C-alpha cells in the first residue's frame, strides 16, 4: 500500500512538473535560421528570417526589431509573436558592412557566451542595406526557409570560392595573435537570389577590407578546404582542378620571416582557344596563380591581417610573447616564395599538342 502511494505521488508530481521550465513544444517555437544584425546610432537592429510551415509547405517570413542589445530585441519580438522565438537553430548570422567595419567583437562574444546560438553558425557580411536584403528574401517566392543556409551547405550550394567561417573562428580571431579570418561577402543578385562578391577580411573582430572571390579560392586551398571541381579560366583554355597538394616551409632570417609555399595542382582541360600546347597552358596557369597569391599577400600585408594564419608557421621560431606583435612587426616584412607546379592529369576525350 505504501508503495502504491509513493508511486502515485511520484507520478502526479511528474505530471505537475512536466510542462514547466524548458518545456515548449517544437511547434510553439519559432526557429529563425538567419539572424541579421545592423547598428543604427547606438541601437542594434535585428532581422530574423523564420521558416514557417504553412499548408504543407515551408514558407519563410522576416521579422525585425530595434533595441539596445540583441537579446532585448529577441525578447521583444518574442512577446509580439504568437510563439516564442528560439535562437537555438540559427545557422547563419549576417551583419552589414557598416557594422562589420565598426567591429563585431561584443556581438560575437555575446553569441558565444549565451550558448543559445550554436558556435557552428556561419558568419557573413552583407555588402548592402540589410532591410533591402531581407526584404528581397521574404518576397522571394521560392525562398524555402533554409535558402541562405543551403547556399553554404557543403552538400548543397557551396562552392570552393566561398569562405566558410563559423562564429567560433571569428571569436578565435578576436583573441588570437596570428589567426584572422575571411568571411563571405554577399549582396542581392540580379538573377540569382544572392550574389557572392568575395570575402571580408576580419581582424580582431573588425572588418579590414575585402578580397575577391578568386583570392578566396586561394584562401580555402590554403586552409585545406577542397578546391576540387573548381574551374579556372585562362586566356587560351579553361581547366578544372582535380587535385591539389600544398607544403610549406618557414624560417626566420635576421628577424625577417621567410615563407615558402609549394603548390602542386592536378587539372583537366575543359576547353581550349586557338589550340595551345600543354606547356603553354601549364605556364599560363602557374603565372596566373602566382600573381594571384602575390597580390593576396600584398593585400594582407597592407591591412596587417593574417587570414592565412602564416604566423602559426613561425611559432617555432618566434617566442610566444613576441608572437603577439606578429601582425604589426613581422608580418609586413614577410617574404614569400611561390613554387607552383601544374600537372595536367588528362586532356579529356581529345588529344592536345605536346611541347
Amino acid at each position, binding site marked *: 500500500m505504501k508503495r502504491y502511494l509513493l508511486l502515485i505521488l511520484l507520478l502526479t508530481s511528474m505530471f505537475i512538473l512536466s510542462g514547466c521550465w524548458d518545456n515548449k513544444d517544437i511547434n510553439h517555437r519559432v526557429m529563425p535560421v538567419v539572424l541579421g544584425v545592423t547598428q543604427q546610432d547606438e541601437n542594434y537592429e535585428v532581422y530574423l528570417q523564420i521558416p514557417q*510551415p504553412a499548408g504543407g509547405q515551408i514558407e519563410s517570413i522576416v521579422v525585425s526589431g530595434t533595441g539596445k542589445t540583441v537579446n532585448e530585441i529577441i525578447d521583444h519580438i518574442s512577446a509580439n509573436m504568437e510563439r516564442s522565438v528560439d535562437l537555438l537553430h540559427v545557422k547563419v548570422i549576417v551583419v552589414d558592412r557598416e557594422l562589420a567595419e565598426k567591429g563585431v567583437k561584443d556581438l560575437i562574444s555575446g553569441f558565444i557566451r549565451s550558448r543559445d546560438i550554436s558556435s557552428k553558425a556561419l558568419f557573413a557580411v552583407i555588402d548592402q542595406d540589410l532591410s533591402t536584403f531581407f526584404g528581397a528574401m521574404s518576397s522571394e517566392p521560392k525562398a524555402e526557409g533554409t535558402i541562405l543556409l543551403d547556399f553554404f551547405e557543403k552538400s548543397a550550394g557551396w562552392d570552393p570560392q566561398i569562405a566558410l567561417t563559423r562564429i567560433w573562428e571569428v571569436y578565435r580571431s578576436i583573441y588570437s595573435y596570428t589567426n584572422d579570418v575571411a568571411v563571405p561577402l554577399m549582396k542581392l543578385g540580379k538573377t540569382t537570389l544572392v550574389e557572392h562578391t568575395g570575402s571580408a577580411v576580419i581582424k580582431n573582430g573588425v572588418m579590414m577590407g575585402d578580397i575577391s572571390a578568386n583570392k578566396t579560392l586561394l584562401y580555402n586551398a590554403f586552409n585545406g578546404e577542397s578546391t576540387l571541381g573548381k574551374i579556372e579560366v585562362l586566356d587560351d583554355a579553361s581547366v578544372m582542378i582535380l587535385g591539389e597538394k600544398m607544403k610549406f616551409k618557414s624560417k626566420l632570417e635576421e628577424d625577417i620571416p621567410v615563407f615558402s609555399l609549394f603548390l602542386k595542382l592536378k587539372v583537366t582541360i575543359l576547353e581550349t582557344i586557338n589550340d595551345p600546347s600543354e606547356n603553354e597552358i601549364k605556364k599560363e596557369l602557374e603565372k596566373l596563380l602566382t600573381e594571384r597569391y602575390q597580390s593576396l599577400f600584398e593585400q594582407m600585408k597592407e591591412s596587417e591581417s593574417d587570414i592565412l594564419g602564416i604566423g602559426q608557421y613561425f611559432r617555432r621560431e618566434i617566442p610566444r610573447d613576441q608572437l603577439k606583435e606578429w601582425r604589426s612587426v613581422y608580418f609586413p616584412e614577410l617574404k614569400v616564395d611561390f613554387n607552383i607546379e601544374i600537372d595536367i592529369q588528362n586532356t579529356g576525350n581529345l588529344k592536345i599538342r605536346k611541347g
Partner: protein
Amino acid sequence: MNSFIGKIKDAFQGNDDFFCKKQIICGESVFVIGLDSLVELDKTLGELKEYKVIEEIEQHGEELADIETAEASLLEGKLLLARTNKDLAISLVPAPVSLNRSIESSSNENVVLGSPISFNEDIKLNIGLVRKNMKSQHLKVKTYEMGKQYKKEIALLYNQEMVHSELLSKIQDQIAKFMNQAELECIQDAYKMLGLKKWSFVTQINTTEIPDEALRAIGKGRVVLFIDRLSLALILPGVLRDMIFLYNDHNYPYPLMLSVRLLRIMGILLALIIPGLYVALVAVNPEVLRIEIALSVAQSREGVPYPAIIEILIMLLILELILEASIRLPSSIGPTITMVGGIILGQAVVEAKLVSNLLIIILAAATIANSTIVGFQNSISIRIFKYLIVFLASLYGILGILVGLFIICTYLASIETFGIPYLYFNLNKGEKSSG
C-alpha cells in the same frame, strides 16, 4: 461391507464419479474403488482378470491401512482393491483416462532452427523430455509434494557437476520451509515459495516452453523447476542475459549469432529510448535536431492540441491496449484488431490532427524493437521501463533519458536472486565474476 469401505464412501460422498463396485476377480469377491474420471475401469478389469490368483495382484499393489492415504491415492488416480473379508485395501495403478496433450510444438515461443517441441502439463513427461536429451548421470531430479490443501508435485532438476551449491541449497531450504504453507498454482506462487520479492519489475524466474532452453540452463549450472500441470520450465535464477541470448542462436554460424544478438541489444535500447527521445527532442531540446528535421517535425505537429508528453502517452496507451487485446481475442477474430488498430494508428489519428505522423513512426519502431526481446515476460519489463524514461525526458530532456537509463542500470544491478546478481553473465561453477 466392512468399515474401511464405509469410511471411504463417506469421504467421497457427493462425488458422482466415485464408484465402489463388487466384482469377482480370480474367484474372489472384491470391491473395486476409484474415480471414473481418472480410471478407465473396463480396461483395468480386463487386465486384472487375466491373473490367476489374487495374491499375484496384491504383489503389484501397495497395502493401505489408514483412510487418509487411501483417499490421497484415490485422488492421484489409483484404483483400490478391497477384499470383503479384510480391513485393508490395495492400491493399484490402473489404466488411466488420458487427460494429457500429446507432445506438441510450442505455441508461445517460436523456434526458427532446432526442435520446436514444447513442454506439457504432465510433470513426468517434462522430466522425461529433459532426461531424454541429457543422458548424464550428473542430472539429478528431486521431487517434492507441495501445497496446503491441494497437493502438487514439483521437481527440481540440476546438473550436479555444474550447479552452484549455494544456489541449490538456498532453493532447497526455501522449498522445505514452504512445504505445506500455501498453495502452489502459478508463477506468482512460485515467487512466494522461493521467497523472492513481490515487487520485482523484471522476471527473477525465467520461463521457457522449449526443452532445449531448459537443458542449456541446466548445463550452465542453473536449476530448473517443474510444477505439475504448468507447461513451463521455470529457470532459476532469471538473469539479464535471458533477454538477449537464446540457446537456439547457437544453431546459426558464429558471426550470424553475434549479429543477431547485437540486434536484440539494439532492440532493447531502441525500445527504451525512442519514445523518450521523441518527447525530449520535441519539447525540451529541439536544438539537437538538424534544422531540416526540426522544421518537418514542427510541421507535422502543427495543430496538435496538447503537449508532446500527453500525445505520446495517449498513443502508447492505445498501443498497449491493442497488444493486450490481440492476446485476449480468439485467433479467428484477432485480425480484426490488427485491422482496426492499423486504421487508427496509420491514418485516422494523423488526419484528425490528434497526433503528429512522426509519432506514429516512433511508436511503430519502438513496438517492433520491443518484439525482438527474448521472452514475452521480459518484453513487458522493457515496456514498463520505457515509461520511466518518457516521464523523465518530459522533465529534463535528454538529461532525463540518460538519467532514466542510469536508474534502470542501478535497478538491474541491485537485484539479486539467491545470491546471484541479475547482471550475471557467466554462470559457471566457482567463478563468481559478473559483467
